[in-house]
């Protein structure tokens, strides 16, 4: 029952070099935690509209699992007590989790990659409360978060631009450049 | 509360179709009967020759006859059929697409369940243009039915009360597709499934059924236990949609519950004997997923039991 006029394309997942994951694996997560907490605090301050879009889903627990890194992130956007921390393994009781290579997750968060396209190509996967995951994705997509600026101010903004160009080069097959 | 027998949605052989209506005329205690082809314009010629005799016999038996329009009208042939139907003098028409309003002379008409009437304003709009009765879309919950009945009392409201529930229409024929045929050269394979072709999930749960270009549910809607609530909502008529079971017996069952001669629970038990091995559902009316069978104490999973 196939449609003869259908065309198909394959996408090759872009992942970090395995050597990098091995190199960072033994590092402790503790120094990362204050950085993540600061980042979430700044995002909440710079992009307050995020919470309007998240609505009821702001109080949910999200797991964000970069499959090519030796740790994952636990996110509770909650307006009253927001929390973002790195964990070796995600806890079982989560509302939703999003899994995929770091490049895909960052690209989606920055709006350079389309989440649905990553999902169709099986690069990205969602488990649990799909509506919560979608609300988070859509809220972040609308916020246009500049992670470089969030972390490091104007210097980070420039650094981010350089890094983005490099990442996009790596992820062309995901769809970022196929139309240009 | 009246009973209306909806049009046969499936492609039955001309003889089966004709004999079905003859028996309905002679034996079924229904007030109105809708005839004609609603689903696929290619099937219409098979019925054409029998329609006058069927209509005559139904009317002689004291039944009000309505002529169904097509649901999806896109080809020139379908537009022509629709125009002819709308312009014929003697027939009372049940419109299933708003296309019919473009060619409607100013005279009363009925509205079938395929026209999107979800609120009192849409119902009022149609009533102003001559609609006298309206079978509401099957997915409407009871509060909406009640609100429409109350706001447009001049309109006789009807609900889809028995039968596999029509869920979707397509330009594509899924019977032809399943038989690896094109729609234009379909060889009328839909006739092989007079009660629809079952569609199950990959793990074997009954889900849908295919009727050519139309998708229906696998479960059979039955609002027997909801009749008291429907009466409170001022519903004027119940629609029974023909399935491959004894529809005369189904009509008798509904008539008996409406008349208070048997309890809905007993009627539901008997219904299982008349149409065996088919799950019954009423979720839509209860504002739930359509496949759910909601009892007095709330919902239970219908098809997913």
């Amino acid at each position, binding site marked *: 029952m196939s449609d003869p006029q259908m065309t198909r394309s394959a996408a090759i997942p872009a992942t970090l070099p395995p050597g990098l994951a091995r190199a960072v694996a033994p590092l402790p997560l503790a120094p990362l935690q204050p950085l993540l907490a600061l980042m979430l605090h700044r995002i909440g301050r710079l992009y307050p509209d995020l919470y309007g879009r998240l609505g009821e*889903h702001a109080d949910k627990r999200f797991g964000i699992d970069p499959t090519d890194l030796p740790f994952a992130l636990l996110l509770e956007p909650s307006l009253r007590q927001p929390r973002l921390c790195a964990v070796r393994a995600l806890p079982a009781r989560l509302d939703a989790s999003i899994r995929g290579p770091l490049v895909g997750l960052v690209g989606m968060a920055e709006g350079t990659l389309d989440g649905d396209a990553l999902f169709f190509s099986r690069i990205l996967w969602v488990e649990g409360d799909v509506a919560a995951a979608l609300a988070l994705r859509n809220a972040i997509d609308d916020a246009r978060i500049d992670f470089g600026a969030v972390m490091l101010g104007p210097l980070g903004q420039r650094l981010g631009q350089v890094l983005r160009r490099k990442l996009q080069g790596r992820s062309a097959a995901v769809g970022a450049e196929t139309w240009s | 509360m009246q009973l209306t027998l909806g049009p046969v949605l499936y492609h039955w052989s001309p003889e089966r179709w004709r004999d079905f209506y003859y028996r309905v005329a002679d034996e079924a205690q229904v007030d109105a009967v809708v005839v004609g082809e609603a689903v696929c314009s290619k099937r219409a010629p098979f019925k054409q020759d029998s329609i006058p005799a069927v209509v005559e016999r139904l009317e002689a038996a004291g039944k009000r006859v309505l002529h169904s329009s097509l649901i999806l009208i896109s080809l020139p042939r379908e537009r022509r059929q629709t125009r002819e139907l709308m312009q014929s003098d003697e027939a009372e028409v049940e419109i299933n697409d708003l296309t019919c309003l473009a060619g409607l002379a100013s005279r009363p008409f009925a509205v079938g369940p395929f026209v*999107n009437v979800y609120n009192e304003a849409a119902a009022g709009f149609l009533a102003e243009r001559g609609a006298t009765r309206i079978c509401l879309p099957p997915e409407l919950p009871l509060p909406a039915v009640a609100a429409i009945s109350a706001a447009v009392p001049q309109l006789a409201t009807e609900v889809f009360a028995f039968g596999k529930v029509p869920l979707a229409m397509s330009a594509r024929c899924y019977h032809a597709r399943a038989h690896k045929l094109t729609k234009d050269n379909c060889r009328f394979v839909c006739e092989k499934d007079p009660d629809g072709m079952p569609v199950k999930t990959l793990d074997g749960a009954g889900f849908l059924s295919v009727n050519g270009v139309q998708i229906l549910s696998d479960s059979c809607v039955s609002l027997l236990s909801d009749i008291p609530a429907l009466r409170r909502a001022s519903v004027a008529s119940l629609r029974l949609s023909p399935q491959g079971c004894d529809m005369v017996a189904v009509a008798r069952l509904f008539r008996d519950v409406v008349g208070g001669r048997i309890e809905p629970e007993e009627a539901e038990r008997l219904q299982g004997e008349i149409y065996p091995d088919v799950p019954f559902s009423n979720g839509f009316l209860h504002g739930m997923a359509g496949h759910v069978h909601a009892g007095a104490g709330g919902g239970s999973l219908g098809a997913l039991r």
Partner: protein
Amino acid sequence: MELICPAGTPASLEAAVEAGADAVYCGFRDETNARNFPGLNFSREELRKGVAFAHRRGVKVLVAINTFARAGAFGLWQEAIDDAVMAGADALILADLATLDYAHRRHPGQRLHVSVQAGAANPDAIRFYAETFGAQRVVLPRVLNVMEIASMVRETSCETEVFVFGGLCVMEEGRCSLSSYATGQSPNMNGVCSPASHVAYAERNGHIVSTLGGFTINSFGKDEPAGYPTLCKGRFATPRGSGYIFEEPVSLDAALMLPALRDAGVTAFKIEGRQRGRAYIAGVVSSFRKILAAIDEGRSPPAVSLAAMAEGQASTVGAYRKGWR
């Protein structure tokens, strides 16, 4: 030829404007619009700002209020219409007799488009909407082929708009209750189809199994491209065999048919995808802009591949090609 582009968020609206849209369509964050998805759509304030932004760039904003009003709650739809007009919407996209009638009477000067959800599939139906409500454009249902579209355009004075890219409804739009049969939530009443809140994914024997309202919709092998968990694009079993009995997980891509659709007299080309991210909007809109520019100048359109954006990573020209049926 106008290019009509989707926006689920203000950021997407800006992305669409910057990528070359002639008009952007969007809706309010409630059940009045047929893309009532979590985290999407516009507040009243966001729409006002969005319209102002678009108008500064010479781009139109069309507001979709294209669900069917809930009985007893028509006020919500009336307010949406009034507020969209107040915000400066260039047109309202409506489907319900009730909303069309209200908008036509209450805002006689307002431009009205008949939504694809109204399922106006022939010139008589279009004439009904044009004559009764003064509708100036109709979005055609995805059940017609190019020849049929051409003959429809010849017979009507109403402008026509067709979908050229994105999600593909296999069933006639506006008359499909498959979603509500499985979940209780329908496109017509709730503005959702196969809602995320009723979707679950699970791993079973190395396959990813998607379910909707408890019904198994599909099972994808390890590296098989995935699609939305919509009922009409799931795998099911029939006595005639198992598989994609309605349609495969594919998107519409009619880029190659743009010249034929233009010759058929179509006024506007529409891209589906208010639920997609900015990256999709920017990518798809800019490539269609380039193709249209090339066609306008009589050049051969540039070859672009948007397959990575497509559901199941596959595309079809759907009903535009006659054999699809």
